């Protein structure tokens, strides 16, 4: 895909984030979509492409009254929206549509109008994982981390620092769910969820949503807000079964998606001003920094513990507070994208001064899928 041919021209989250007991899941989609359309100065009738995950594109298109000529229902977990951005950029470049709306919303806390996720007993997961007591992401996602820690010499204290540093970012963000400062001791004394992870190393469970609007870079200059250009993209999948990953020392999906995006962008790691790495649990930023090539895996724990990703550090990471402290409705990738867009527009609550390139990396399932988008605000 060619660089900077497509731009984000509308971006918004739901009016409220957190606990939203007065709105169903599909209305959260609509709330985010209407906010993004207003942000872009468009009408619903301007939208000719639609992408969403979990909910089907037909549900969202019908609810909003959109008649699309291009549709993407890729649903690979929380990074689905990174894949939507990549697919939409290709579709716009190919002339399949002009203006794409991507929506996410989840009534993750209030569970209103939300389909239950279930694992069929005759699926491979149902036969070879569920009988051994896995029960939701906290029991599955951390399974690789003890091996990762042993291989690379990562400590419990370093993994606690991930949560501490992200809380420092969240403290600067009025919309963050958790803003009170925390210490390593607070993290290591919080309630045990699934050893080695404790409550403060697991993502929040909230309600909310977000939406993005993309169009060609040539049209983008006519919109009310500063366009954010797509510089590089990557995607991959590995396995829906965490037990069947090729190795627990890295994520194959990360190692495909990330470098693909860097190669397409034609940038080096030193060019990056801002990074988002989907942090469903505290180990993900370490996998991400290593697998995307920022540094060897064995240096990731020390890098974060030494403060290089905190406010004022040389590699600002998860500047909204992340899934650990900002919000996590179930598929956080959309919120990581929203923060990258805010940083590139220069309007983030914890703005990184003069940031020109933002890397936004997502995970789907338990290392099952991955998508990476690299943004820039310079044409």
């Amino acid at each position, binding site marked *: 895909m060619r660089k900077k041919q497509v731009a984000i021209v509308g971006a918004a989250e739901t009016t409220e984030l957190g606990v939203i007991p007065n709105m169903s899941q599909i209305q959260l989609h609509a709330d985010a979509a209407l906010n993004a359309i207003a942000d872009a100065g468009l009408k619903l009738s301007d939208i000719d492409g639609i992408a969403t995950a979990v909910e089907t594109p037909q549900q969202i298109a019908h609810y909003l009254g959109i008649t699309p000529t291009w549709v993407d229902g890729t649903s690979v977990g929380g990074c689905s929206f990174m894949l939507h951005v990549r697919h939409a950029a290709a579709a716009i470049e190919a002339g399949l549509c002009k203006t794409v709306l991507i929506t996410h919303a989840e009534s993750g806390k209030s569970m209103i109008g939300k389909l239950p996720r279930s694992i069929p007993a005759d699926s491979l997961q149902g*036969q070879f994982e569920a009988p051994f007591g896995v*029960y939701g992401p906290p029991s599955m996602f951390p399974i690789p981390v003890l091996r990762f820690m042993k291989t690379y010499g990562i400590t419990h204290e370093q993994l606690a620092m991930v949560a501490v540093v992200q809380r420092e970012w969240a403290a600067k963000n009025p919309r963050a769910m958790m803003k009170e400062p925390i210490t390593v001791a607070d993290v290591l004394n919080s309630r045990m969820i699934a050893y080695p992870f404790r409550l403060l190393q697991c993502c929040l469970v909230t309600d909310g949503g977000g939406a993005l609007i993309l169009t060609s870079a040539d049209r983008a200059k006519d919109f009310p807000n500063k366009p954010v250009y797509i510089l590089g993209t990557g995607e991959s999948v590995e396995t829906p079964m965490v037990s069947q990953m090729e190795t627990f020392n890295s994520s194959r999906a990360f190692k495909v998606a990330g470098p693909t995006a860097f190669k397409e962008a034609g940038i080096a790691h030193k060019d990056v001003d801002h990074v988002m790495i989907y942090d469903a649990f505290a180990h993900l930023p370490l996998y991400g920094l290593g697998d995307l090539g920022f540094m060897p895996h064995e240096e990731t724990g020390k890098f974060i513990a030494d403060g290089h990703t905190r406010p004022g550090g040389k590699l600002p990471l998860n500047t909204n507070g992340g899934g650990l402290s900002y919000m996590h409705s179930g598929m956080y990738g959309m919120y990581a994208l929203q923060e990258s867009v805010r940083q590139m527009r220069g309007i983030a609550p914890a703005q990184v001064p003069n940031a020109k390139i933002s890397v936004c990396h997502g995970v789907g399932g338990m290392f099952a899928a991955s998508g990476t988008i690299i943004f820039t605000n310079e044409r």
Partner: protein
Amino acid sequence: MAEPARARPKPTPETQHFWDGTQAGELRLQRCDACANVYFPPRPFCPSCASRKVSVFKASGKGKLYSYVINHRPAAPGFTPPYAIAVVELDEGPRMMSNIIDCPQTPEALELDMKLEVAFEKLDDKITLPMFRPAKG
């Protein structure tokens, strides 16, 4: 009211040999006749070279502890927390999820790379699960 039960696997045509194996006290894996790749979970072709000529064989049942969590909450139906959910690396190469029995469910007792051996636990008349315990000797 009955106690909530552990999730019960439902075999498919492609996995029946595995579950017949555990019923018979055997851990069965598959090997590709063309490229000798040993793989899991079951499927009637080789995921490495795509050959459909594959054989089922009885594995040694020996392996080592690759990684785990000790789950505290929420606990799955049929489980009393804390309990370890482990991934075992079999001597033949493939890894599989299981539970570790006859061992305290603590970080001190559950050492990565400890040697394990398969143990079969009957779930009901039709299904037996492959569990692992610390290897003797």
